């Protein structure tokens, strides 16, 4: 039996890149995302182009019932996996005080709860004949306390710590865990706009999503615990790790507040024009 990968958030920018990368390597796929239509379109296309076996199932990962239905479906299909790529996640950027209780709950449920539960369930469905590889999409934001993205960076820090600990815990059990820590990626017009709002720094820290997906699979196959795509980002991370956190938070805060302000300003200008 060949490699079968389970990918969450597979219809989004990075998830889609992972799906394409895995299909191009001849992996069979099980894809999930919140909406069924783009998912089945992508599945058809991957099947046509790469000739691999692709299954998909729409699931709202923030909802426990929807997740239960997903597990039931996977179990009834008799699938066994040896790759789990947890991509689904979201960010509500902006001042914490302005977030609604609903947004706070949604982020916790998707970025943390769903990731943990899914990892737990899929570990039970691993193919015993092969090494089981988990990729958790954390973020470069995991390395810093980030004002204006406080909840997001903390949730990604959670995933980073969890991945490292779980990887160590399951090392002798033929399981590897890799935390992917990318900077912003140009996947949607909104992301591209956010990268532009950061100016030069945004541009040099940005990696193309196809490259990130490909390199990350290589890293996971080597059992690397953490992967930061892009040399400028690895330098940033290294610099951040030797400077006291209070100073890092101050510096990051001033940059992000400025970038966030510019973005809001742009959106206002844009709205005034349209």
């Amino acid at each position: 039996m060949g490699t079968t990968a389970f990918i969450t958030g597979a219809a989004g920018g990075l998830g889609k890149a992972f799906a394409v990368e895995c299909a191009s390597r001849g992996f069979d796929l099980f894809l999930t995302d919140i909406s069924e239509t783009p998912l089945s379109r992508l599945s058809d296309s991957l099947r046509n182009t790469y000739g691999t076996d692709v299954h998909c199932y729409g699931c709202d990962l923030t909802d426990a019932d929807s997740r239960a239905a997903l597990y039931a479906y996977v179990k009834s299909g008799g699938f066994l996996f040896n790759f789990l790529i947890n991509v689904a996640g979201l960010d509500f950027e902006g001042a914490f005080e302005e977030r609604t209780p609903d947004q706070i709950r949604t982020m916790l449920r998707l970025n943390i709860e769903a990731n943990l539960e899914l990892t737990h369930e899929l570990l039970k469905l691993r193919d015993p004949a092969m090494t089981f590889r988990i990729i958790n999409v954390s973020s470069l934001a995991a390395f810093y306390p980030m004002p204006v993205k406080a909840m997001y960076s903390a949730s990604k820090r959670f995933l980073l710590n969890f991945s490292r600990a779980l990887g160590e815990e399951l090392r002798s059990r033929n399981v590897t865990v890799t935390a992917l820590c990318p900077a912003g990626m140009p996947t949607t017009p909104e992301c591209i706009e956010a990268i532009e709002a950061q100016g030069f720094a945004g541009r040099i820290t940005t990696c193309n999503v196809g490259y990130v997906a490909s390199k990350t699979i290589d890293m996971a196959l080597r059992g690397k615990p953490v992967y930061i795509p892009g040399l400028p980002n690895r330098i940033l991370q290294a610099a951040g790790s030797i400077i006291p956190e209070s100073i890092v938070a101050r510096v990051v805060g001033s940059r992000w507040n400025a970038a966030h302000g510019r973005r809001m300003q742009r959106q206002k200008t844009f709205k005034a024009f349209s």
Partner: protein
Amino acid sequence: MENADKTIVITGATSGIGLAAAKELVLKGSYVIGTGRSEERCRSAEQEIIGICPGAKISYLAADLSSLSEVRRLAAGIRETLAKDGFSHLDVLINNAGTVSSWYVSTVDGFELQFAVNHLAPFLLTHELLPLLGRSQAGTVICTSSGSHYRTRLRWNDIMLRKHYNTLLAYKQTKLANVLFVTELNRRLAAAGSSIKAFALDPGLVNTDIGFKGTLGIARIVWQFRSKGGTPPEIPARSMAYLALDPVPRSTGKIYWKDCRPKEPSAYSQRPDIAKRLWELSERMCGIVGR
């Protein structure tokens, strides 16, 4: 000489070369269906053309050519529009829409954006409209290629440059793919005894906004300077109209045209093995089987 009373489809006809060609063809009396990505821009292009040519036989259909299902929907819309106006054939299909992207962006079907819009969309739209073109006296397919198809090749091990994306390299590849497509299409049509002919048009350096689509930083600045030195879109539009209406190009056997004159395309673009391989890959990507 030329028979201007033709039914013509032009993709990407809301700006640049496509809009200029639509104006030219409508003024000569042709029936034109233009396409564009945004409904709003389609409507305003339509108004603009009716403004300069009252009574113009022009209509527009909106479709996002980055999505294969949208391309199929567009083809159905074209068939419907033609039928509604009493036509059971299409004389000319001009695959002109094109784009540029600074970043690797993947489409709903999981393809790289430039590859999907500049190559797969023309491939699939032509496939869908071939039966209608076959019912014309002189069916013609024109693809807007570019001089940037020279001095490049297809990277078969990563044809969409997922791993090492480069804006210009990706663009050059898609324009090369256009010439390869035209080459293989002509070969297949001739083998099937069809009278349809396909041409690739080299528009030269033209002052349009293509360099501002999904790009940023240096690419935009460079294009700001380069496009100023380019010809206005009316110049390649004239060549486009010439290929669409004049019987002369059909009789020459030449497939690559610039300024109403044939030109030698790159040697790579004429390799039958490459053209066939790209064709078969494109068929798989578009989910076309058993032709």
